[in-house]
């Protein structure tokens, strides 16, 4: 008697899906409920950002680079501007450095709030999504009063920042920071010890440290696997060495640890913003950069710690031109999408959603 054979079948978790964090397509090969193979198909959000930048001056590139990773626009601009400043050897005034740090960390909080909302939405708890976005409104209001936009800021420029903060910024920021820790406590009360959340996330999608390092994963996903690597501390850029903050890291590398790392990071970012506001001096916000900014010939790679990992910009300058010759951007989500087929193998279909949400993959970084 031949043994019972089940047949594998393929399902398309298509580009239009409420839980794929952008337009990502997975072709899943299933055996019953268990996933045998997962193949990501990308390219649905390709906007040719790197090519566009080859035809824009450095200042005009910045609105374009804003859209590279629109959940953390400030980081996208920052990494590009750092590269350009490294090429040209420009030193930034102190106040501009502090302003940049404040904006970057506020942007990190906003991005983690999106992650928190979408993670709980993917798992079925719809309410924390709205709570996260309620806090995000406060952060976006702070951005809007400074630079005029809520998502794509065009704020960090070569040589400094574009505008100084208005006088309402600091009181409003203090108001936000005062209530933020309490709000994060609220978020934790709803999800962190919830038995349903625990059983969905514990031991799901375990990422070993060796696998993480081999795939080049960085950011909170790496720190949740036990590798304590944060570019703000291990390869400091800007003025991060002046602030006291902890780098959270956990041991298991499952979805639950990644959740804990990001919740802790939100709190630490709030602390950094508080310290930066205390320490910020008065002064210029923009260095003396020539109007026709032409960096010397050369190539440079700069990297920063984004909320999703290491974000890098590689600029090749031909020397006597206002436009870069080649811009290459690197986003942390690309590596995390690469490791996803490994992680989901052996899990059930519903875990694909949980794992993707916990890795915090977003498509604009991948497709550019």
């Amino acid at each position, binding site marked *: 008697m031949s043994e019972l054979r089940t047949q594998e079948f393929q399902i398309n978790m298509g580009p239009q899906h409420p839980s794929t964090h952008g337009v990502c397509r997975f072709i899943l090969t299933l055996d019953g409920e268990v996933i045998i193979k997962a193949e990501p198909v990308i390219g649905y959000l390709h906007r040719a950002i790197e090519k566009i930048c080859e035809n824009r001056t450095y200042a005009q590139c910045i609105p374009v680079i804003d859209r590279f990773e629109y959940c953390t626009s400030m980081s996208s601009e920052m990494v590009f501007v750092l590269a350009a400043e490294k090429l040209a050897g420009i030193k930034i005034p102190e106040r501009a450095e502090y302003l940049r740090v404040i904006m970057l960390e506020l942007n990190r909080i906003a991005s983690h709030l999106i992650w928190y909302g979408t993670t709980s939405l993917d798992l079925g*708890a719809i309410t924390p999504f709205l709570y996260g976005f309620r806090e995000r409104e406060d952060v976006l209001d702070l951005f809007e009063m400074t630079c005029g936009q809520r998502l794509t800021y065009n704020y960090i420029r070569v040589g400094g920042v574009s505008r100084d903060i208005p006088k309402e910024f600091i009181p409003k920021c203090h108001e936000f920071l005062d209530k933020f820790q309490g709000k994060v406590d609220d978020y934790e009360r709803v999800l962190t010890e919830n038995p*349903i959340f625990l059983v969905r996330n514990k031991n799901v999608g375990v990422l070993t440290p060796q696998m993480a390092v081999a795939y080049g994963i960085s950011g909170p996903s790496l720190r949740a696997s036990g590798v304590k690597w944060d570019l703000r501390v291990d390869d400091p850029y800007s003025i991060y060495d002046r602030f006291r903050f902890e780098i959270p890291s956990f041991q298991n590398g499952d979805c639950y640890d990644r959740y804990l790392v990001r919740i802790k990071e939100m709190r630490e970012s709030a602390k950094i913003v508080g310290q930066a506001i205390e320490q910020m001096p008065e002064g210029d916000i923009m260095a003396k950069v020539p109007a026709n900014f032409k960096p010397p010939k050369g190539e440079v790679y700069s990297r920063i710690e984004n909320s999703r990992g290491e974000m890098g910009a590689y600029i090749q300058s031909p020397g006597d031109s206002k436009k870069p010759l080649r811009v290459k951007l690197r986003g942390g989500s690309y590596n995390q999408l690469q490791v996803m087929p490994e992680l989901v193998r052996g899990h059930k279909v519903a875990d694909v959603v949980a794992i993707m949400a916990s890795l915090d993959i977003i498509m604009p970084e991948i497709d550019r």
Partner: protein
Amino acid sequence: MEIAAIFKYLYELLASTGLPSMLVDIIALGFAAVVVFLFLALVALFLVWLERKVSAHIQQRFGPMRTGWHGWIQTVADAIKLLQKEDTTPANADHPVFYWAPIIAFVAAFMAYVAIPFGDGLIVSDLNIGILFIIAITTFTIISLLMAGWGSNSKYALLGGMRSAAQVVSYEVPMIISVLAVVVFAGSLSMVDIVESQAKIYQWYIFRLPFGPIAFIIYIIAATAETNRTPFDIPEAEQELVAGFNVEYSGMKFAMFFLAEFVNMFTVSAIATTLFLGGWQGPLLPSWVWFLIKTFGMVFVFMWFRWTYPRLRVDQLMEFSWKFLVPLGFANLILAGWMKSSGWFNW
């Protein structure tokens, strides 16, 4: 104003017309059924609005505000919209099966109200196997889920239908066991008898420690799973891959499934009220007001659960039922039986 007295008066009026008593009974029952049906249709519409408002305020927003005062006409607008949608049938669908699935779901949802007491004397028919009848009828929904899954001729609908049927079947068992604990104590399957055995507030089955609260909690969990609500709403979750059994339905057929779900929610709340919270007992206010207060309170609890908790994966859900709820339910049943027979806590 006693509604029971009104019905009694109408019945006397009908009986005095001189028709044969069998015909009088049939007409009276038919009339009662129509009244209950209309009441439930209104309740279902109200519940849809209530769900939207409760979920909105939990999320610190307003919900429907434009259609009427605080949006109370919103459900009517939605119903009109659904009525005018095109009624599609997938190609190669199994037509009779596809057609009858929502109807069976709808009918099963409403038929359970034959035996539910809305107040003192306000019951369509006081069957002496009341609760057994209700549980048997609510099990009909499984058939409609399977029919919907099969008749849609879509592998996603089939998978979704199978999963939800498995879920409902595996949560029927703990529900019945928790109900049995109460029945053992009350000594009767009739709904009216069960309510009357809870005459004082300390006699309500939810307060009869130690088996009462455990039975209540098991019942609530099983009821949430029966009505496919979070945390057990895998069959309806849009965020999951397979979209569920009603993916191919549109227009009025979809509206029937939708309304049946809300009526089911009201049914399980009504059963919880009758069995655990003392039914229509309560001081001062008329009995049907107490019944409605308690039932809407339970409905609110179910809505609260939906908007707070994430959802369980299918295998975790089944594991939870069979490995945890069923043994606990049996232990509870034995405890209840022992308590009743030995006379402990028997006040």
